[in-house]
């Protein structure tokens, strides 16, 4: 079995200039009910097939950005578009369809402890596409991709942090999403395993899936030389096509 068999067909690598962004933010701000301004006046455009790192210190607003994208949170001001649809004005009824476009790895994994690894991955399909054919095969293929094919019947509590993270990745991948959002997917992993995960995301991206990865992992960002969006106190302070974790020439702490 090869990756090609389970990934969506490849599309154009780089967007041509006239292409419509798959995700765009226009003057977006988010103030939480307690008054915290987590995102301030953000403008962004992300194209189909992009691979973006979102970097920034703890509390800079990375997770909030992800939440705004899937409309777990609603922007206080500004407009967000996904696939040309304004999500900031979307009715509740249409949220499921929006969310199914994304595969999301949550920073806290959000695995169900009462279900096995395979059941956790299957759950995402069962509740969004009930009656899906070849469910078992799809789940097993996806777990094979993340290297957990021998942990199908294990419970999340019996896994290491890194393994749990890979279950979360498998669950986000199982429905072959168009956009993959990963919030600190390498947070708990040793350098080798982290690198393995990133290789995996690069492969997924290579097949045409847009990937957005929030991370603190400087080494990975510097090695990949991909697009880097840096946030500081809720503002986009840097957006480079082939960037590093820090600005060129910026002092290392």
């Amino acid at each position, binding site marked *: 079995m090869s990756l090609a068999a389970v990934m969506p067909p490849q599309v154009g690598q780089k967007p041509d200039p006239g292409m419509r962004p798959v995700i765009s933010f226009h003057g977006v701000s988010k103030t939480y009910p307690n008054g915290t301004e987590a995102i301030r006046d953000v403008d962004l455009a992300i194209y189909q097939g992009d691979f973006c790192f979102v970097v920034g210190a703890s509390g800079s607003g990375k997770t909030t950005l992800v939440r705004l994208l*899937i409309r*777990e949170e609603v922007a206080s001001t500004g407009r967000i578009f996904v696939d040309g649809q304004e999500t900031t004005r979307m009715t*509740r*009824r249409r*949220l*499921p*369809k*929006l*969310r*199914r476009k*994304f595969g*999301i790895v*949550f920073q806290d994994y*959000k695995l*169900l402890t009462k279900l096995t690894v395979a059941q956790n991955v299957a*759950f*995402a399909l*069962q*509740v*969004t*596409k*009930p*009656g*899906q*054919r070849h469910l078992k095969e799809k789940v097993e293929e996806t777990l094979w991709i993340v290297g957990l094919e021998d942990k199908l019947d294990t419970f999340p509590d019996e896994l290491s942090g890194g393994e749990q993270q890979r279950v979360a990745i498998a*669950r986000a991948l199982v429905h072959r999403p168009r956009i993959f959002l990963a919030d600190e997917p390498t947070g708990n992993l040793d350098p080798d395993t982290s690198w393995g995960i990133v290789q995996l995301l690069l492969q997924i991206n290579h097949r045409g899936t847009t990937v957005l990865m929030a991370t603190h992992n400087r080494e990975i960002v510097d090695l990949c030389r991909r697009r880097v969006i840096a946030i500081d106190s809720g503002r986009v302070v840097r957006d480079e096509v082939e960037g590093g974790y820090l600005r060129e020439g910026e002092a290392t702490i």
Partner: protein
Amino acid sequence: MRGLLASVRFALVAAGQNFTRNLAVSLAGVFTMGLIMLLVGGTLLLTHTVDAILAQQETQADEIHIYLQDSLSMRTIADYELRFSHDSRVNGVAFTSKDQAVVAAQQRGLQLQPAINTLGTNPLPASIDLHVRTLGDLSQLNTVAKALPIVDTSSGSATDYSPGVIPRLQSVITVTVWVGSALSVVLAVISLVIIMNTIRTAVYIRRTEIEIMKLVGAGDWFVRWPFILEGVFGGVLAAAIGATAVAVAYRFVLSQANTQAFLGVTFDGRYLTAMVLLLLAFGAVLGGFGSFLGVRRFLHA
């Protein structure tokens, strides 16, 4: 089709899990609601039975039965019959023998055979039955009849004339209907609160699951159905418990009333069936609606 079947299966399995994972709370809710259903059903049956007694009394209203002593000869009885038939206030005279009285009583649903067997004799008196032209004459005729030497005074009343019974029954019905309706509304609201809280507990147990379902893009109804089904299931179960208790009590009370008090009330199987179905539907609707309200707040949060 496949998708629908899978969704239904998912919802049923989840509803079953909700019920059993939360068994103590679920059962407490079901039994409380069962008790409420019992009260509602009991009120319905009571109203219906009083209604039936009233209807029966009304058909008998233009008749007066003069109860006769057992020792009278047929001749004496025939004389009195003749005298009454000449009375201008009377437009029909009939005679009911002791045996006919038993048959008539049995037609009204009274179970007399056990009593006759115990006593060894037939306790019902024979009677001369007068049909009056106008209801207003009943009272006068009653006075005349009671003074006759042939009447049977042993059982306390010489005739079956009881002028107050109809208005009294009517007021009983009015009160039962009012009290019953008010009580049912209050009890329905209490049921709703009980269901909402039971479902909230079930939602709380499943909060992580629901959160994930919503975030990966499951529809609202997909999240809701397991809870609604749990509510409907609990409501129907409660109604079944309540209805069974009412049906058993109804049978018992009627048989007691008819053998001990000679009340001629028939067991109305059709009404009972209708009432049971109504209770089941009521339970299902209350359960479903209560659950809907219970999950709503959480879903929109």
